[in-house]
């Protein structure tokens, strides 16, 4: 034992369990392996939860809850914390009674129960799902001082299911078919039109989520996965796929999930999530604790493929340096990035900027607003600025 320990300050704030003490949990037996056949997080993590914004919606049954990204350490979102978006609450679907019907311009209409679906050739893939309204409250200005609320309408999971190309191979598709209507079994009978080409490219009907059955919040017993496209189109509690020649122009793809431009026109069918990123530490919920060396951490994603780089600025965008991307870097999945930062304790403006494999560079909110104004609600993929004050506190701000 060297001089270091000898000279170390006594630790008056050391808690009762620190060495040399032997805490209670080291001197007793905990519960056995039959205590929790299905496990739970530590009760010390009780504040790591989904949260909602009561003033946002008339009630909680057509509303949203947000993933606590400030506590997400990797690219996988814990099933218990995956954000929710309901249009008629969370239905309790009996899997034995549920059916998926595939019909319309097919040679052989098909009616599948969950057991049938599980028999088809399966695939597992890690993809994010983001509600395009994520950050929607920020179009007019910085509103919510919280990473959870500005960016938490996203989750990433390992999904298991069957490719639509497999199912449509089974039914056959008639010449001239070009669109697919997907419809849910929830009270909203939520429905969206999807180009057949996208369906055949990489869409799936999902029944597994992170090693267990799809959660009720995410569409149990089955949902559509439309990799990289806006969350709403990933229809949950999927009961019906109808093949046709034209889109249906449903309420969700006309009155909702369209972006109003300054000239009064609205963009529709803007499905893909463009490259986006956010710094998850520091953030308003996880402030700085004194000057020193830190690791800036964050998540980046693109609905158009892989993230190819992420840059970091701590001066509001004057200078940038590359962050380190954490493998595996998967297509249409969250990608974790890190960068060392020696904070001098002075005010700073922390930002991240993602670039994806198409070469697309994440825009600033000013660039977005210059083109799209302040009313789009959806598809805000702007660079987030976290203002770090000298006391370490962090605020959501927007820059010129």
């Amino acid at each position: 034992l060297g001089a270091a320990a000898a000279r170390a300050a006594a630790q008056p704030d050391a808690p009762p369990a620190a060495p040399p003490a032997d805490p209670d949990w080291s001197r007793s037996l905990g519960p056995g392996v039959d205590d929790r056949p299905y496990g739970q997080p530590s009760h010390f993590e009780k504040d790591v939860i989904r949260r909602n914004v009561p003033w946002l919606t008339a009630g909680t049954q057509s509303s949203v809850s947000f993933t606590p990204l400030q506590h997400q350490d990797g690219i996988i979102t814990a099933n218990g914390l995956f954000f929710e978006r309901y249009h008629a609450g969370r239905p309790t679907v009996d899997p034995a009674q549920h059916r998926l019907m595939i019909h319309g311009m097919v040679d052989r209409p098909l009616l599948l129960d969950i057991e049938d679906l599980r028999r088809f050739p399966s695939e597992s893939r890690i993809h994010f799902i983001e509600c395009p309204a994520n950050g929607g409250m920020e179009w007019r200005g910085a509103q919510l001082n919280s990473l959870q609320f500005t960016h938490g309408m996203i989750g990433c999971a390992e999904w298991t299911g069957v490719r639509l190309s497999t199912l449509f191979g089974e039914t056959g598709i008639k010449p001239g078919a070009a669109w697919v209507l997907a419809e849910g079994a929830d009270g909203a009978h939520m429905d969206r039109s999807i180009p057949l080409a996208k369906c055949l490219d990489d869409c799936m009907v999902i029944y597994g989520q992170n090693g267990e059955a799809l959660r009720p919040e995410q569409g149990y017993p089955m949902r559509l996965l439309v990799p990289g496209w806006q969350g709403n189109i990933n229809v949950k509690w999927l009961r019906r796929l109808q093949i046709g020649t034209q889109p249906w122009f449903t309420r969700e793809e006309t009155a909702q999930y369209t972006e109003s431009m300054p000239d009064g026109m609205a963009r529709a069918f803007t499905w893909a999530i463009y490259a986006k990123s956010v710094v998850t530490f520091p953030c308003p919920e996880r402030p700085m604790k004194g000057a020193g060396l830190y690791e800036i951490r964050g998540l980046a994603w693109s609905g158009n493929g892989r993230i190819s780089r992420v840059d970091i600025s701590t001066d509001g965008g004057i200078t940038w340096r590359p962050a380190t991307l954490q493998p595996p870097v998967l297509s249409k999945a969250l990608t974790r990035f890190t960068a060392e930062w020696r904070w001098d304790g002075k005010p700073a403006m922390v930002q991240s900027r993602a670039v994806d494999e198409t070469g697309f560079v994440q825009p600033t909110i000013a660039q977005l607003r210059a083109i799209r104004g302040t009313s789009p609600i959806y598809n805000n993929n702007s660079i987030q600025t976290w203002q770090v004050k000298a006391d370490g506190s962090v605020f959501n701000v927007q820059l010129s």
Partner: protein
Amino acid sequence: VSKGEDELVGHYGYGAVPTAQQIEGWSIAVQPDGTGLPPGHGSVSQGADIFASQCAACHGTFGEGEGRYPKLASDSKLTDEHPVKAVGNFWPYATTVWDYINRAMPFPAPHSLSPDEVYAVTAYVLNLNNLVGDDFVADRTTLPKVVMPNRFGFILRDPRPDTHDVACMSDCRKPSDIHITSSAEHVGLTPRTTGPLDEMEPK
């Protein structure tokens, strides 16, 4: 799973073939040309009665919206600073009003109205928006013909990428050009919902 002839079965042969009645029963989606609309009809005045009893509690007697529930009528301009978007000034197709009310309304008991009732409240909502006259009767023929003011208000081809940021690395901006245009610090809108959220907002 036993099936009829061989050509009727796919490669895997799992699942069943839905009957015509089963397909018909679930095929509720309506298209702008009226495809999918069932027989039946309903008038504005019939709709007014149903609306008063089943819809007005949330949407207001004249579609003005109670509390935070959606307004169903609006004549605000879509170029307004804060446009109120509703059926009259925003929805491109009257068929979509029928489709949505039929599948999702009334909110607490979705898909509980008869086709005649859906035709009637659809007629009433269109009338509230001054899109049809007081004597309008909605049916599978009249609905697709209703002229919707914002019919051509949608861009159906994604114009992105519309921003052209560049991955500049140094001297990207003049420091004096950068200022805070807005901050959430004193907005006071961040909910706590439950339990500690952060160390910024008052508990």
